[in-house]
C-alpha cells in the first residue's frame, strides 16, 4: 500500500507549527515527542504504520478551529482521528501530517426525550451515547462491533453500520445535524433536531466522507425508544444456497427482523472451538432476531420458523430465556476473536445483492482453494453486507501480499455481481486503489469536485479514498502554489 512521501517543505516547518499550536492549545494537548506520537502511528489496520509530525487533542470546537486555521495557513495536512478503530486505515497518518484527535471532546451537551434526540461532542464513544439515554428507555441504533471503543466522529466519517441496521439504518439515517469545522477554520452548523436539514443535503455528503470535508465536533443524533424485548432464533442448514434462499424468503414474506446474521462452516468451526456456543455442525448457520412484546415476538417467529422449516433445517433453535439468547449470540459475537486466536486475518466488507449470495460464496470457496488461503464468512445477510475473513500468517514472508491480492479479487467479485467494495468500514487506504473497479474516472471526478469545494487545498486526510494517481494533481498544493 503506497502512501505519498512526506513533503520535506512541511517537515521543515515542524518547529514553527508546534510553536503556533502551543499558543492556542494547552501544553498537554500538543504532542510532538517522537516517543509519544508513536501512539498515533496506526489505527485498527495495524499492518500500516507511520508516526505523524505531531498530534493535537483539542477540547472544544473553538480549539479545533484554531488548530485548523494554523495548519491551513502553513499548508500542513491534517488527519482527523476518532478512537482509531478504523479497519480501513482511515486514521493512518503520513509523516508530514498533524493528527487531530477528538477524544477529549466527549460530553453530552443535550438530551431531549420529548423530541427524541441527543446532542454530543463527537469524541464520545458509540456505546456511551446509548449509555446516556438507556435509563430513560432509549437507545442510539447504529451498533458497529467496535461500539465500546469507537467514537461518533469516526462513525460519521465512515457512515458506520452494525448488526441491527436492517431495521434501523446506518449512521446517515440516524444523524440529524452536525457542527463542523472546515479546513480554513470556519465553523458551520448543518441540520439540527428537525427531520430534514433544508437546502442541499450537505449532511448526507458529509456523513461517510472519511474526514475529508471537515472535522465534525458536535452531532445531533436520533434516539429511539427501546423495544420491549428481543429474541433470536438459530437455524442450521445443509448448504449456503439453502441458507441464502431462506434469507430471501423471509424478506419476501414481509417480516423485517432487526438482524439476520450468517456464518459459514469454517467460521462455525472456529468460533465453536473458541467459544463453545454449542452451534450445530453444519454448512451454514443463520441467527435471526426479532423485537417487540411477547405477543409480537411470537407472531413474527411463527412466520419465520415456518419459512425455515420449508428449507429442511438441520437445526432450529428458538431461545427460551435470556441465557439462551446470549448463548445463540455468543459464537457470532466472538467470531472475530476466534479467528484472531487461530490466525492473522484480514476482514473484508463488500456488499452484494442478497440474491447473489450463494454464487458469491461458491466462488470465494473456489478462489480460496486456488490461492491456498482459508476464508471464513460471517456477515449481515439481510442487507448483503459480507465480512469474509481471509486467514494468513503475518510472519510468513509474502503471505500478507497474497492475502491482500486475494481480498482485492473478492471485492472485485462483489462489484461484478452488482455490489460494492465496502458496506460499512469505509475506503480509507485499504480499498483506495480499487475505487477504479467500481467507479469510472468521471464518477470519481464528481466526488473529488465535492472535496474541492469544502477543502480547496486538499489538506484534510488527503491520501485516502481516491486512488493516489487520481488525486495527485490536487494533493500537491505546495507545488501548485509555487
Amino acid at each position: 500500500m503506497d502512501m505519498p512521501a512526506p513533503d520535506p517543505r512541511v517537515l521543515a516547518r515542524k518547529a514553527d507549527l508546534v510553536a503556533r499550536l502551543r499558543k492556542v492549545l494547552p501544553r498537554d494537548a500538543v504532542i510532538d515527542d517522537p516517543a509519544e506520537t508513536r501512539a498515533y502511528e496506526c489505527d485498527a489496520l495495524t499492518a500500516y504504520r507511520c508516526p505523524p509530525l505531531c498530534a493535537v487533542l483539542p477540547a472544544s470546537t473553538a480549539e479545533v478551529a484554531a488548530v485548523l486555521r494554523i495548519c491551513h495557513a502553513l499548508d500542513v495536512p491534517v488527519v482527523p482521528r476518532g478512537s482509531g478503530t478504523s479497519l480501513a486505515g482511515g486514521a493512518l497518518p503520513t509523516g508530514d501530517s498533524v493528527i487531530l484527535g477528538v477524544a477529549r471532546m466527549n460530553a453530552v451537551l443535550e438530551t431531549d426525550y420529548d423530541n427524541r434526540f441527543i446532542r454530543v461532542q463527537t469524541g464520545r464513544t458509540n456505546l456511551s451515547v446509548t449509555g446516556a439515554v438507556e435509563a430513560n428507555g432509549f437507545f442510539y441504533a447504529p451498533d458497529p462491533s467496535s461500539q465500546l471503543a469507537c467514537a461518533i466522529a469516526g462513525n460519521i466519517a465512515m457512515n458506520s453500520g452494525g448488526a441491527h441496521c436492517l431495521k434501523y439504518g446506518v449512521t446517515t439515517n440516524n444523524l440529524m445535524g452536525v457542527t463542523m469545522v472546515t479546513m480554513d477554520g470556519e465553523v458551520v452548523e448543518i441540520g439540527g433536531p428537525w427531520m430534514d436539514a433544508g437546502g442541499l443535503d450537505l449532511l448526507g455528503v458529509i456523513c461517510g466522507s472519511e474526514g475529508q470535508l471537515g472535522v465534525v465536533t458536535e452531532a445531533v443524533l436520533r434516539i429511539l425508544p427501546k423495544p420491549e424485548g428481543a429474541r433470536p432464533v438459530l437455524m442450521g442448514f445443509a448448504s449456503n444456497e439453502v441458507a441464502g434462499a431462506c434469507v430471501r424468503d423471509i424478506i419476501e414474506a414481509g417480516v423485517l427482523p432487526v438482524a439476520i446474521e450468517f456464518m459459514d462452516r469454517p467460521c462455525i468451526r472456529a468460533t465453536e472451538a473458541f467459544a463453545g456456543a454449542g452451534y450445530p455442525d453444519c454448512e451454514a448457520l443463520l441467527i435471526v432476531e426479532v423485537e417487540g412484546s411477547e405477543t409480537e415476538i411470537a407472531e413474527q417467529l411463527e412466520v419465520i420458523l415456518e419459512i425455515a422449516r420449508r428449507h429442511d433445517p438441520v437445526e432450529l433453535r428458538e431461545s427460551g430465556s435470556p441465557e439462551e439468547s446470549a448463548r445463540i449470540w455468543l459464537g457470532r459475537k466472538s467470531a472475530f476473536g476466534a479467528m484472531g486466536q487461530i490466525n492473522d486475518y484480514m476482514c473484508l466488507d463488500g456488499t452484494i445483492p442478497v440474491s447473489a449470495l450463494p454464487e458469491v460464496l461458491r466462488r470465494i470457496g473456489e478462489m480460496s482453494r486456488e490461492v491456498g488461503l482459508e476464508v471464513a464468512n460471517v456477515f449481515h445477510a439481510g442487507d448483503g453486507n459480507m465480512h469474509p475473513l481471509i486467514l494468513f500468517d503475518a510472519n510468513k514472508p509474502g503471505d500478507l501480499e497474497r492475502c491482500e491480492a486475494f481480498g482485492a479479487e473478492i471485492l472485485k467479485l462483489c462489484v461484478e455481481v452488482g455490489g460494492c467494495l465496502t458496506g460499512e468500514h469505509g475506503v480509507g487506504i485499504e480499498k483506495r486503489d480499487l475505487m477504479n473497479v467500481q467507479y469510472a474516472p468521471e464518477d470519481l471526478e464528481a466526488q473529488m469536485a465535492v472535496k474541492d469545494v469544502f477543502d480547496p487545498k486538499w489538506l484534510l486526510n488527503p491520501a485516502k479514498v481516491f486512488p493516489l494517481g487520481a488525486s495527485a494533481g490536487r494533493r500537491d498544493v505546495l507545488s501548485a502554489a509555487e
Partner: protein
Amino acid sequence: MGPASETELAEMIRGASGPLDLRGGGTRVPWRPRGGAVLSTGGLSGVRLYEPGAMTLVVGAGTPVAEVEAVLAEKGQRLAFEPMDARGLMRTEGAPTIGGVMAANVSGPRRVQVGAARDFLLGVRFVDGTGQVVKNGGRVMKNVTGYDLVKLMAGSFGTLGVLTEVALKVMAVPQAETTLVARGLETGAALAALRAALGTPFDVSGACHIPLGEGTETRLRLEGMAGSVAYRAGRLRESLCAGWEMVGGAESAALWREVRDVTALAGTGEAVWKISTVPGRAAELVAGLADLAPRAVFDWGGGLIWLAVAAEVDAGAAAIRSAVARLGGHATLVRAPDTLRARVPMFQPQAAAVARIAAGLRARFDPRGLLNPGLMAASDEVPA
C-alpha cells in the same frame, strides 16, 4: 426537450446555451420560469431491475410513481417513504415521476418511522450541467464506497444534475394497519400526545393533527402484523390515547392519503408553506404567527407544518422565516401566485458559510448555471 435516453440528454445539456426548466411529471410548477427550454424526463422511464427478495428496484427517473407503485404492489411491496401526490395541493396536472419525488426529497407521514425519501435512495445516475454522465451509490442496502452523492442529489431540485436512473430500497406492505383518532383536541395537547406516542416502543408510523371542517382530528397510525397492531393499539389506548376511536383497514389508509397529500389545504387561493422544525416547538411557532391567521396541518408529530396563509404582501415570509430561524428549522414556500414568487425566494436563506458551500457545489456541477438556475440560491445570481 424530451430526451429518450441518457445519451441524448447528455448531448442536449452539452449543446444547451440557456437556462433549462427541468420537469418530471410537472406537478410542481417551476418557481420562476425563465423562459428557458423545458426539459422533460418523461422519456427516461421503465423498470430496469426488480428483486423483491433483495428489496431493490431500479427504474428510469422519468417513470411515473403510479407505475412504480403498481409494479411493487404485484409483489406486496411499496415505497415506504410514502411520497405525496402534489397535484391537489399545487393545482397542477401531469403524473408525478419517481425522479421528481427524489429531486424534491418528498417524504410522507411515515417519515417518523422509516425515514425520508433520501433514506430509500440507494443509487443514482445523472447528467450534470456540463453534460457529463455520473453514477454514484449502487443497488445494495449498505454502501460507503466513496462520497454519498446519492444523498446530495436527493433534494437538490435538479440544480446539480438531471437524474436519469434511481435505485430504491422498497419494503413489504404490512399485513394490517389501524389509526387511533381523537377529535377536538387543542393544538398543544394534541401535539404533546403525538410526541409521547412517538416516544413509546409501539412503533408509530404516522402522527398528525389536522384541521377538519370546523374542528380538528389527531391521528396515530400503527402498521404491522395483525396481532402486533392490535396489541400496540391496545397498549396506547390504555394510557396515552384513552377514548381515541379505532379505524382500521382501507378506511385508515384513506385517512393517511389525505394527510400525505395535504388535502386540508388544497383547492384554495392561499399561499402554502412547508415548515420543518423541532416537533416540541411547533405549537409555539404557529401560535406566534396568529397575526397571519394561518391554517395549519401538523404532520411528523409536529416536525412538519403545512401552513396556509393569505397570499398577500409577502405571504408572511418575514414573520415565518424569522420565527423558524429563532425556533429551529426552515420554511419553504411551496404554493403562491406568480406575483409572490417573483418577490419571495422559495427556500429559507442559509447561514453565509453554508450558502457558500452550496453555491460552490452548484458552480462545480453546473458551471454554466443551466439547471433550474437561481432556484436554490439565496440570490438570483447565476454563476459567471
